[in-house]
């Protein structure tokens, strides 16, 4: 009798592990949320988003990154041990575990909650998954009162929830802005993902890409030949369009500027248009610049999984490129989380940048760079080239809430806007609650930009689509300028589902590229 019971129990456990480790079943896409004209606070629906989860990373992907291939035998102890390590390493995590008072301030701020209505997608609800384990193993309160105090055993069903809900967070920090204590769910979800990775439960998309970067130097996994091909193609395109031979130098030593840009810029649309824009800016300004095959990727997915080691390893390619090519300045292309890593972390990870020209910010954002040239009159601009567009600007979450451009706080909002206004005639801002530091994430950041999470991405984009739709209706906006590769990829895919043509999304330097008048300087 007893044996029978044990076997049934074992079977359920087996089934759970199997269910957890298999990829989600193929489902028909869920209906796109309707745009009602207003972003409303919904009533909660428990478990509404429980069925979304990304593919689990295969053992060979995991092992390449030094993580266990599959869920380890004693995963629970390992997870708690890892949690202890992280609590000792990150002040943010330790403080944020303790000080949430569940006031409810953040609850209606997350784009994933607003559209899925699942209470575990409220920032505090999501963090609660982590805190339940923290209370169980690290607090006196939880040890004494147990479940009564909200302390929960770290069992498989909770792990399954972790896997599901911590991969429905784009780490956009909107919750942190509205939290009276600044509790940053991004930090918590990073820690959760690191813990899951350390016990062998990784997300396929992110971890695969980290592997590719380590191996080939960029997220798309292009080798040097493919990269050179792509760039030649771009050069031909520009010459065909304008008749001016604009060059995109690669691996040139002792150039003035090393441009590090997300690898999507070499390949994907509309990213490519921005690359054209950068090239025209450098060409017209007469600045000697170069790309690098070593540092062909600005993006750093190590941040998404919270792994300091991988983040540093990925960033070290930049250092290597600087040492190889000895540029004087470092400029980063249009990418949100890449700019966060570059702006806020590079100096710590791979700094100090003593070998670069100390006169300029190290690194510098391409928007800062271009606007500076325009303000100094180094570029000839024909605004009317963009007259077909009424432009709005989407503040990318990582740029808006984790970085700065220029000297003043808030430069990350003003500089791209000034740049857009310098190259177009018609500019409109979206609603107050959806721009600047209050911006909504595109819905695809933080490692969610993968096909099996398409429903989450569509829903997460809802608030932004709503705001965009409103300005399209009222002001006839037909171009949303972006400065993030993930935003560009996400929006071109998502917007058709909301009945907005994908051409509406494009880079800021796409506009700059169109407006620059090439030719001899006067």
């Amino acid at each position: 009798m007893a044996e029978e019971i044990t076997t049934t129990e074992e079977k359920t456990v087996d089934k759970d592990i199997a269910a957890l480790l298999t990829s989600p079943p193929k489902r028909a896409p869920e209906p796109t949320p309707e745009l009602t004209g207003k972003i409303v606070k919904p009533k909660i629906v428990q478990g509404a988003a429980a069925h979304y989860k990304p593919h689990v990373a295969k053992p060979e992907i995991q092992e390449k990154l030094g993580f266990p291939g599959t869920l380890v035998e004693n995963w629970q102890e390992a997870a708690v041990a890892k949690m202890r390590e992280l609590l000792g390493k990150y002040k943010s995590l330790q403080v944020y575990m303790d000080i949430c008072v569940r006031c409810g301030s953040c609850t209606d701020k997350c784009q994933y909650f607003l559209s899925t209505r699942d209470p575990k997608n409220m920032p505090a609800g999501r963090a609660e998954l982590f805190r339940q384990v923290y209370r169980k193993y690290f607090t006196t309160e939880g040890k004494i009162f147990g479940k009564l105090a909200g302390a929960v055993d770290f069992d498989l069903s909770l792990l399954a929830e972790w896997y599901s809900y911590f991969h429905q967070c784009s780490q956009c920090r909107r919750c942190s802005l509205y939290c009276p204590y600044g509790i940053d769910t991004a930090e918590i979800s990073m820690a959760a993902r690191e813990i899951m990775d350390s016990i062998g439960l990784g997300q396929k998309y992110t971890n695969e890409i980290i592997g590719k970067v380590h191996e080939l130097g960029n997220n798309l996994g292009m080798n040097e030949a493919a990269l050179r091909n792509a760039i030649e193609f771009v050069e031909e395109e520009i010459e065909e369009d304008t008749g001016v031979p604009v060059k995109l130098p690669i691996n040139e030593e002792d150039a003035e500027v090393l441009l590090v840009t997300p690898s999507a810029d070499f390949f994907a649309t509309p990213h490519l248009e921005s690359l054209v824009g950068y090239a025209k800016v450098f060409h017209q300004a007469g600045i000697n610049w170069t790309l690098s095959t070593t540092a062909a990727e600005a993006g750093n997915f190590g941040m998404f999984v919270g792994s300091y080691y991988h983040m540093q390893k990925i960033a070290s390619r930049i250092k290597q490129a600087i040492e190889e090519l000895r540029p004087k300045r470092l400029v980063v292309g249009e990418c949100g989380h890449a700019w966060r890593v570059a702006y806020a972390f590079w100096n710590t990870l791979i700094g100090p940048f003593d070998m670069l020209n100390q006169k300029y910010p190290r690194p510098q954002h391409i928007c800062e760079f271009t606007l500076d040239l325009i303000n100094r009159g180094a570029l000839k601009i024909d605004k009317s080239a963009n007259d077909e567009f009424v432009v709005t600007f989407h503040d990318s979450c990582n740029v808006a809430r984790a970085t700065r451009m220029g000297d003043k706080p808030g430069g990350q909002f003003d500089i791209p806007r000034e740049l857009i206004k310098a190259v177009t005639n018609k500019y409109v801002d979206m609603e107050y609650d959806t721009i600047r530091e209050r911006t909504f994430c595109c819905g695809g950041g933080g490692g969610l930009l993968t096909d099996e999470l398409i429903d989450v991405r569509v829903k997460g984009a809802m608030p932004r689509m709503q705001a965009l739709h409103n300005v399209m209706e009222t002001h006839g906006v037909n171009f949303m300028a972006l400065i993030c590769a993930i935003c560009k990829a996400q929006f071109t895919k998502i917007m058709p589902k909301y009945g907005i043509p994908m051409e509406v999304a494009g880079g800021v330097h796409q506009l700059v590229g169109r407006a620059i008048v090439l030719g001899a300087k006067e």
Partner: protein
Amino acid sequence: MSGLTLLYTLFAYVAIAVFLVGFLARIWKYATTPSPLKIPLTPAPVNSVGVVYRMVQEVGFFKSLFYSNRIIWIGGYLMHIALLITIVKHLRFFFKTTPAALAWITSFEIYVGFIFFGALAFLFLMRLVIDRTYYLSLMQDYVLLIFLMLIAATGILTKYYVRTDIIKVKQFVMGLVQFRPEAIPGDPIFIIHFTLVLLLLIYFPFSKLMHSGGIFFSPTRNQVDDAREVRHVTPWAVKG
């Protein structure tokens, strides 16, 4: 010395010791845990004066909460202000001669206890009424609110209805502060009030009330936004 006095003297010292050691241990932990990367929430101040100003806005006026949820801000802010005034008022029991500033604050308070109680009741109600906070609330959230409401209620009773001889209370408290035990006033309401406060002190370091100290260590709020200019170095994160 009566049994009651002995009991409460010991109880008070235990509670104070638990509170002090527990609170300071948490603070020590927050202060010494490294923060390897710069993660201020931008737009952030670019110098430490700006950080102080930001913290003053957050701690003094709950700025983020104000822009986030006006209703919770009203309840929370009233509650905290009333609590602050109440604590400041109670300080007169702890100093041999009441400082002039303290007496001044005491003289213009009007029914702060009632505001405190009302704000707590309001917050309690909001927890139940908003479905999102109802979902989030744990047992300890309700327990703490009820606990504070009881403390407020007994405090109001001793002040307005069942008067306690505060000279005796002050002698007792001064005795505790100067390690020279005195007899505890025998008023039942005062004893309940005092017991609840001591229990709260014991629970304090283990509860979410640590947000009072923790907020000063929140990296998204207390860091300077100078990542490009100054290299942020933490021993474990930057080797060598």
